[in-house]
């Protein structure tokens, strides 16, 4: 296979830079391929939509949206399949990518995480205020309470901690808490509380520590904790043995823990946040 990078299609997909997609060995029309695999497509669409926390209506909308794109240009996406993988896996990747495009199309580049959507409106709004708009957690909680949401500070921290990390690293190093206010919009809250500042500091330290890890180790942790895959799924994703992976993850966590400890972030403090 080509090892070149790939450009992103305007709407949906990436295509090989090196020449036009090779035709399927037995040329079939896109609609025939679609009909042949429609059960698998429907099954995968349903599971992807559930993982992303789409409502039933959104799920149906995504399904129609994907169908149009799968059949576009006489099913170009389907005819691009060259047998380098199973059809099921290929369709899984294609539909996961289409779903990503659908969510971009629907919600814009920034969109609430699947976890936030599963947790409900309060979590979606909390994530939006804190992660997208840069509000302080407690200020966001106050705003949500004013909107009628029954949410405590500790619940908000737990919610945020359970969501995928979408933290934008600051240009300055850890400890520069005074810069936090500068990350916010002018009309946003003025002061960060100490807990949130500490949270940001920890996240930055974790990112720093991640930088010191080998690529595969980083990938393992990001798939496990950022993308919320199980260890077994991470193992299958990367084609590595599952059982040693548990120990490997633990070793990597030990390294992150040491890194945090070196920066004065005690394990007990982390545990206390989540308690």
């Amino acid at each position: 296979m080509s090892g070149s990078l790939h450009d992103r299609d305007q709407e949906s997909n990436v295509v090989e830079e090196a020449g036009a997609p090779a035709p399927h060995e037995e040329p079939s029309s896109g609609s025939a391929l679609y009909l042949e695999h429609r059960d698998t497509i429907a099954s995968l669409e349903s599971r992807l939509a559930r993982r992303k926390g789409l409502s039933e209506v959104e799920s149906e909308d995504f399904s129609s949206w994907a169908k149009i794109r799968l059949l576009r240009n006489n099913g170009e996406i389907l005819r691009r399949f060259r047998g380098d993988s199973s059809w099921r896996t290929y369709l899984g990747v294609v539909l996961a990518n289409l779903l990503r495009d659908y969510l971009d199309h629907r919600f814009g580049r920034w969109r609430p995480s699947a976890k936030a959507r599963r947790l409900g409106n309060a979590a979606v709004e909390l994530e939006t205020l804190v992660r997208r708009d840069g509000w302080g957690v407690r200020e966001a909680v106050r705003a949500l309470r004013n909107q009628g949401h029954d949410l405590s500070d500790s619940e908000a921290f737990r919610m945020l901690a359970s969501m995928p990390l979408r933290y934008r690293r600051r240009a300055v190093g850890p400890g520069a808490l005074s810069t936090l206010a500068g990350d916010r919009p002018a009309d946003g809250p003025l002061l960060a509380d100490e807990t949130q500042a500490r949270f940001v500091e920890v996240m930055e330290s974790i990112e720093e520590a991640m930088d010191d890890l080998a690529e595969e180790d980083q990938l393992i942790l990001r798939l496990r904790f950022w993308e919320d895959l199980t260890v077994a799924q991470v193992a299958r994703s990367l084609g590595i043995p599952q059982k040693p992976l548990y120990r490997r993850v633990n070793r990597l966590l030990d390294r992150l823990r040491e890194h945090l400890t070196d920066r004065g972030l005690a394990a007990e403090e982390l545990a206390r946040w989540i308690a």
Partner: protein
Amino acid sequence: MDRLISDERLAAFLDGCLDEAERSEVLGMLARSESDREVLADTVAALDDVADAPAYADQERRPTVAQSPGTGRTSARWRRWAAPVAAAAVAGLLWVGIAESRGPWLRLAGSSGPASLERLGDAASQASDAFLSEGLRYRFSGVTTRGAIASDPAAVAVGRFRAGVTAVDLELASGLGLSGQVADLASGVAGLLREMDGLGPLAGRFEIWGANAGSLSPREATELLRDTREVLDGPFFRLGHDLARGRIAAELHEWGLAEEAMGAVDRDALAELGAMAGFDALERWVELLERPRAEWEGGMASLIRDLGT
């Protein structure tokens, strides 16, 4: 960030069809590209959740450069068992929920946590295989003759332990009445028992069970397994059985049942088994199972909790 990896290439990566150089390149791209990681993770989760067929069905006939022979066996085991056992377990939960009478050891619907097929597939594979982690499995599979097993207390213990783990899958499959899976699992247990002196008659019962899997009612199957278990109820069989139940229950977020199962784990037997087999990883499973419910939740909370404990 835009994606760096084409759909075709990412699919080939997931199916283990790239050579080592291509695989390394894709790993590097995945490490750099959040978008590609998202697509990969969503794909794996969706494929894992498709219970009607193993996700990577074509992998056996393709090159898998990243996997050792041992990994291949593990993967093959996972492919063979995970989907049917996951389906069996979910349906088993439904079944035991409506059954009027059942053995207490089959009561997998004892609490209110939501069942997750995704997690269950994971749990099923782990309960079937990973309990016998590297050292333990090596010790067992390295002994291949009846005489050798009979003369090796560790091998006998591991065999009983493994039979206990497999029996949990058997219960789940029988709960659904999946005769094919019941036949396979019963045969698996029988094969383990045949290797041990004095357990031939018991192995025969499992074989009969497997042969009649399609004609037994769930109640009959339950009673048969209960009778069998009474005979087998040595410390190592019980240990494997309780650990497997606890782990599946915990993965299902059936916390009440997990606590119940883990409460029954004989720590002395665990230590003895670990010492005989020269492997201590079982302790790790127990530690995981004994963690508070909140610690099983995923995402960044898991990371922070793991760092904080």
